[in-house]
């Protein structure tokens, strides 16, 4: 008896549309099974593949636990929800959509803080004067922590923010933020500035494979077949561009 290969794709919004388009461009037709609002799907001609529609963050979680073999979701979510992501997840392909930068942004009026290192120097004075650490608002707690550790910044603490993060410095609940931005307009409107070396991650949608999943029963072979198909039909792909971005993103890390 063979085990089907399970691939999770985002269940709504632009990520879902772009994923569908991406498959289509490689000669793969993804469609839902049964009711239009259901969460199961298939790829025409690939009987051994099950498509499941999940929220983008659930995909990251299920890749970690191995409930699904493969998935498509943003690199930001993978790095945030999976400690040691490079050991536990295979990053197979950058897909060229779903772009968003995770950045450190501070009030523009902090003229003395241009680089991440300035933050640490300033944090000592800040703590002495305000009897507390700098507060960083973010929903990316792990990414923030890892980045600041790498940059040797310790004088801060995180306040979790699940929405309207850019407004927190003006509102007074935080001093600076780590958040995603695509155009930078919201940052500007809230008088925030990205630090000169404050781009933590240039994220985009990735095709990923779980190392925790059971790859026996034919799943590994089906994956090979699928990857051949995705690599073969790269005419519609912006593969060069995607590769450039992949390289660039790696450099950032």
């Amino acid at each position, binding site marked *: 008896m063979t085990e089907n290969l399970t691939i999770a794709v985002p269940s709504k919004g632009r990520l879902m549309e772009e994923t569908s388009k991406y498959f289509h461009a490689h000669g793969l037709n993804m469609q839902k099974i049964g009711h239009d609002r259901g969460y199961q799907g298939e790829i025409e001609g690939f009987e051994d593949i099950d498509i499941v529609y999940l929220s983008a963050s659930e995909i990251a979680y299920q890749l970690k636990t191995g409930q699904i073999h493969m998935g498509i979701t943003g690199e930001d979510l993978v790095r945030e929800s999976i400690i040691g992501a490079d050991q536990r997840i295979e990053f197979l392909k950058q897909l060229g959509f779903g772009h968003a930068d995770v950045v450190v942004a501070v*009030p*523009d*009026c*902090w*003229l*003395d*803080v*241009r*680089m991440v290192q300035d933050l640490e*120097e*300033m944090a*000592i*004075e*800040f703590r002495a*004067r*305000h009897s*507390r*650490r700098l507060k*960083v608002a973010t929903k990316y*707690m792990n990414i*923030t*922590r890892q980045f*600041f*550790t790498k940059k*040797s910044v*310790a*004088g*801060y*603490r*995180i306040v*979790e923010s699940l929405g309207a993060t850019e407004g927190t*410095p*003006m509102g*007074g609940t935080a*001093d600076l933020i780590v958040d995603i931005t695509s155009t930078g307009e919201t940052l500007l409107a809230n*008088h925030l500035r990205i630090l*000169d070396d404050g781009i933590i991650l240039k994220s985009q949608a990735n095709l990923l494979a779980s190392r925790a999943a059971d790859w026996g029963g034919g799943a590994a072979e089906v994956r090979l077949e699928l990857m051949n198909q995705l690599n073969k039909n790269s005419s519609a792909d912006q593969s060069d561009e995607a590769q450039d971005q992949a390289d660039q993103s790696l450099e950032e890390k």
Partner: protein
Amino acid sequence: MNEISASAVPDLKAMNALEEKITSLFSGQGFEHIDPAIIQPADVYLQQIGESIRGRSYVFTDIDGQELCLRPDLTVPAARVFIEDHEHYGDKARVYYSGPTFRYPYGDTASDHSREFRQAGIEIFGKEDTEKVEAEVLSLTINAIKEVGISNFNIRLGDLGLFDALLYAIDMPERWRKRLSENFWRPEEFRAILKQLSAPQNLEYEEGLRSLLRKLNDLSTKESEAHVSQYLNDHAIPLIGARTLPEITNQLRAKAADLVANPLEPEKIELIERYLEISAPPKAVGARLEDLAEKSGLDLTHALERYQKRIEWLNKLEVDLSNAQFTAEFGRNLEYYTGFVFQIEKQDMEQDGHIAGGGRYDNLIQSLGSTKSLPAIGTALHLDRLAALIDGDVL
């Protein structure tokens, strides 16, 4: 992900016996038993130790949205007990505790018992004869370890106060001292800062800001603030957030001063490096320091006296220092230690596998919210590691 074993302790009987021996020693010495809460407000740790605590402990949000954590150590919880029961303790207390602590186990080889592990320890709060109480705490730690039948161990000593004394004896801008001192517990960053200070400061600012900085060096504080304010206006940048104009100006002035400051002289850097290289038997350290002070013309008299006084007390208490090593760089990786620090290591153990450790933390009580600044010192023994050693050694 590691499986979580059903039992917190592999051999409960042995653990209980071990715990009993150690805690009776503490209570016999007049220490009072306390039982700090296992669940602690995360805020306290985030404030004291910083965000890194999230990476190595169990921080969670309860259904009411409050951020809590499973205590990653027992020193902070014990200090909170002392502050909370201030009416009972007054300004002085000697307490002991024993119980589980929790840390996230890193690496493939991490066992369950590095996730949940038992610690027994003592804390002494309030003013005492500084060097005497330091020697006492180390002596008691060693006695507790011997009491459970372990005799092969190394002692590692350090002194953060000594380093601060050295730093303050060397002539340099106060803000550089502060940066070095604040980063002593992070060796890599420390070296990076030292290197940075050894070369002319180079700020990659855009020209507008650069010319603002250049001006600040010739201006008074008040005039500087006016200039910074003008700059913000000219660029339509509103002042938002908790930092005030004087704070921002102050930091800009520090940067401006750095731009024209002479780099830290090679002799001074060498002096710091030579101090940090010291790793010697505790009784030989005094001479090394005297030598260092003499050659560089520094006044370390007071710090040296205190060091020697501690050695005298260790002698009086008959602490065997033949397996002890003083390492200047040894500063523990917890940010709240301020002076004398020590660690007891099994002879063949890797560095982070210490079986006991402790030290002086004079700033903690006040920064935890006490109205008074009271000194404090303590020690904690890793019961699981001790139990594992006894298991391997004695049987």
